[in-house]
């Protein structure tokens, strides 16, 4: 089964309900879309992520937040890419919302008011990547000790730690 080439043209993905709905809602919030390996990814501007999640939830297009995580593309800028994996149990479909964050100011709005399940996931990203979530009810380290210095999952943090 050779890999099918990825579709990156947003015009071709307009028939997807999630893409269509987000474009109809705020076309300036969507910066791109990608369909690769049977998975749909939508790039959202950082200011609109909480509202986009709230919109998809209100429209009934997603009813579960599976996962929230981040990848560090250091030394490229913007270095962080956050991935929100949303699931629709009703339609049996997943969608990934992505937000790009720069290394200078890695902060964005928390989605805990929309999905309480994001609580631990956001704390984990704060702890291990140093991404700050504005409006999170309890943004403190969750894995590492309170007095730990640095954010271990960043690419400029050595695998063996500082000695």
């Amino acid at each position, binding site marked *: *089964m*050779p*890999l099918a080439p*990825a579709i990156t043209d947003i015009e071709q993905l307009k028939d997807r309900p999630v893409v269509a709905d987000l474009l109809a809602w705020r076309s300036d919030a969507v910066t791109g879309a990608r369909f*690769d*390996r*049977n*998975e749909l*990814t939508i790039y959202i501007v950082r200011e609109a992520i909480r509202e986009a999640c709230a919109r998809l939830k209100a429209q009934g297009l997603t*009813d*579960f*937040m*599976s*996962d929230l*995580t981040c*990848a*560090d*593309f250091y030394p490229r800028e913007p270095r962080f890419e956050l*991935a929100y*994996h949303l699931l629709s*149990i009703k339609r*049996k479909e*997943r969608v*990934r919302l992505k937000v790009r964050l720069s290394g200078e100011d890695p902060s964005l709005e928390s989605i805990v*008011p929309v*999905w*309480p*399940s994001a*609580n*631990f*996931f956001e704390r984990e990203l704060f702890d*291990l990547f140093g991404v700050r979530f504005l409006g999170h*009810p*309890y943004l*403190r*380290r*969750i*894995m*590492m*000790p309170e007095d730990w210095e640095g954010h*271990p*999952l960043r690419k400029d*943090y050595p*695998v063996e730690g500082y000695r």
Partner: protein
Amino acid sequence: MGHLNANPVLDATEDKTMILNMGPQHPSTHGVLRLLLEIDGETIVRMMPDIGFLHTGIEKTCEAKFYQQVVPLTDRIDYLCPMVNNLCYVMAVEKLLGLEIPPRAQWMRVMLAELQRISSHLVWLGTHALDIGAMSVFLYCFREREDLLRIYEMVSGQRMMTSYFRIGGLALDPPLGFFDKVKKFLDRFPEKIDEYENLLTGNRIFVNRLKDVAKINAEDALAFGMTGPSLRASGVDFDIRRDMPYCGYENFKFKVPVGNDGDVWARYVCRIEELRQSREIAKQALEGMPSGSTKAEAPRIILPDREKMKTQMEALIYHFKIVTEGFAVPAGEVYHAIESPRGEMGYYIVSDGTAKPLRVHMRSPSYANLQALPQMCEGRLIADVVAAIGSIDIVLGEIDR
């Protein structure tokens, strides 16, 4: 729900309440979970889970390994069902590679994953009953689990950290006599489940400790990210194996048990029924086991057989290349989710086109399920916390990673 953890410091200035520290060295927290309880007499006013005691940085370690070297690390995430973790990881990488797996390997994977579900649920049942006070059930459960561990040992050489699934198939073809042993176990198992049920299901002490305890409704359960049997006990009919099939699950017939009440008892009933259904699936996989190879046709990715490696130049070269420099995976990202015994286990892998992953993230079901614990326990008694922890079946290894 918004009040949860709203106040960082538990405030004990009011003379009515006190702070109780439960764990991390508490036998019924199933590992090293620490719970901060604010209590008023025996009643819990507020609860705050504190985790991270078992954090080993597996996700960071993965980034320094070749793709095939990550497989043994995934065993250590959820140590009660290592093969399910292997399955999720290898399927995610196969999705990145666009690799097709032969049917025999798929059927073997399904069979072993279901056996793992049984052995994982057996540990849950034994320890859950132990927490409640029914000590002997633990011994019964571990008796059957021992049989299963011998089966894993037979097929992979290891009882617990099996690492049997490989990217592109299985490590080896199962040995002679393996299927007979599995068949013997599956034939014997239903009466063992009846035995557990005889000990527990009609036991009035057990039932009274479980019924109407630690309730959570479907809406809250979804909001807190609960999955698996804990979610289905609240009445949400969702099982990834049936609704978004992977690894050939669409070929198997099984029922998905769903509860209504969302209490500890409903979770108990769901898991007991899952034991029977998992046995059903494993039996179907065993009876319909296709013949053929257990490895995909991809010499650059899968290590050649030992015999070929020793006799053929080309196979030796491939072997050398895979071991020393790994194999490049086309750039991209995937999120692959499967139904682990505890719920939705997902692997998010980002590849930059080299032989080492740029990022491996494990979405562990226990991590999300734990978030719902305060919602279940607040307003109830301390003794109910023990029942609630047992009922969401957490594994701290996959919470802390």
